[in-house]
């Protein structure tokens, strides 16, 4: 079985990637920062009782959270690497 890649949890990196997605969805800056903070809080909560997580798992959790807060941002976050 292939070993899944693990990585160090980077809260600031998560916020930045959500912010990028929010800006490309044309969300106002203040609201974009709130979305990024809420998404980061959600991943903080999810990761709290885990010793190891994969990037794919984290992306999935983040996407589900964003889908509830701001569907356009969730779309941009999920699809930015599937454009071409």
């Amino acid at each position, binding site marked *: 079985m292939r070993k899944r890649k693990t990585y160090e949890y980077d809260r600031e990196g998560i916020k930045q990637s959500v912010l990028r997605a929010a800006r*490309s969805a*044309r969300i106002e800056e203040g609201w974009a920062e709130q979305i990024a903070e809420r998404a980061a809080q959600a991943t903080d909560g999810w990761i709290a009782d885990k010793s190891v997580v994969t990037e794919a798992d984290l992306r999935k959790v983040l996407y589900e959270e964003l889908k509830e807060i701001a569907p356009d941002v969730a*779309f941009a976050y999920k699809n*930015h690497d*599937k454009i071409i």
Partner: protein
Amino acid sequence: MSDLLNIATIALVGLVQASLQLNLGGLILLYHSSLGKHRRRKTRYLAKSYIWGAGAINLLAVGTCCYFISHIFVGKMNTTWLLITIGALLATSIVMWALYYRNQGSTELWLPRSFVRYIRKKSREVNDDISAFSLGMLSAFAEMPISIALYIVAGNAIVQMSENYQIVTLLGYALLSVLPMFVLKLRIKSGSSVVAAQRWRLKNRGFTQVTSGAGFLVLGLFILAFWVM
């Protein structure tokens, strides 16, 4: 052959070229990367440079075809080469219908993944007009396996125009080929978002695929009917 028929051919080629998706996808990628780190105003300038870069490659590629056609075939392509070009157009049409998009749920194209990763990396690194212009050139260059037959047809039509109109039609072709990118740029400037554009591409991917494939087919038949027969 009349100038009118040549203009119709060039316009048809320009429209088929405009229906291709790599340049447009590259521009959306650039918007996504740039809006995340630059002001909107700077992103607009970068997008403009990207479009000029893609247009420049289209212009140079057709100009090169014009040069070779006028020197090798002395004026226009012979019937054998026209038939080969028609064959290439029809083959491209089938490729477009069968293989253009990679997955069902995305607008990813059948390109080498290493090359796509390179374009993504470059789009993240774009910080000035020159790098945006280069990225536009790169994406137009990457589309060449699909668009080479279009360049040849456009070049063959342009060399048969009256000398007074050759430069004008060459420029007109280059502008027509980047028209969808200008439309996207205008829409984003007037309040729409990159997400809306990508949603549209995703929703209409089947339509764009069929339209592009049909465009190649129609162009092939057009050349067969008006240039060969």
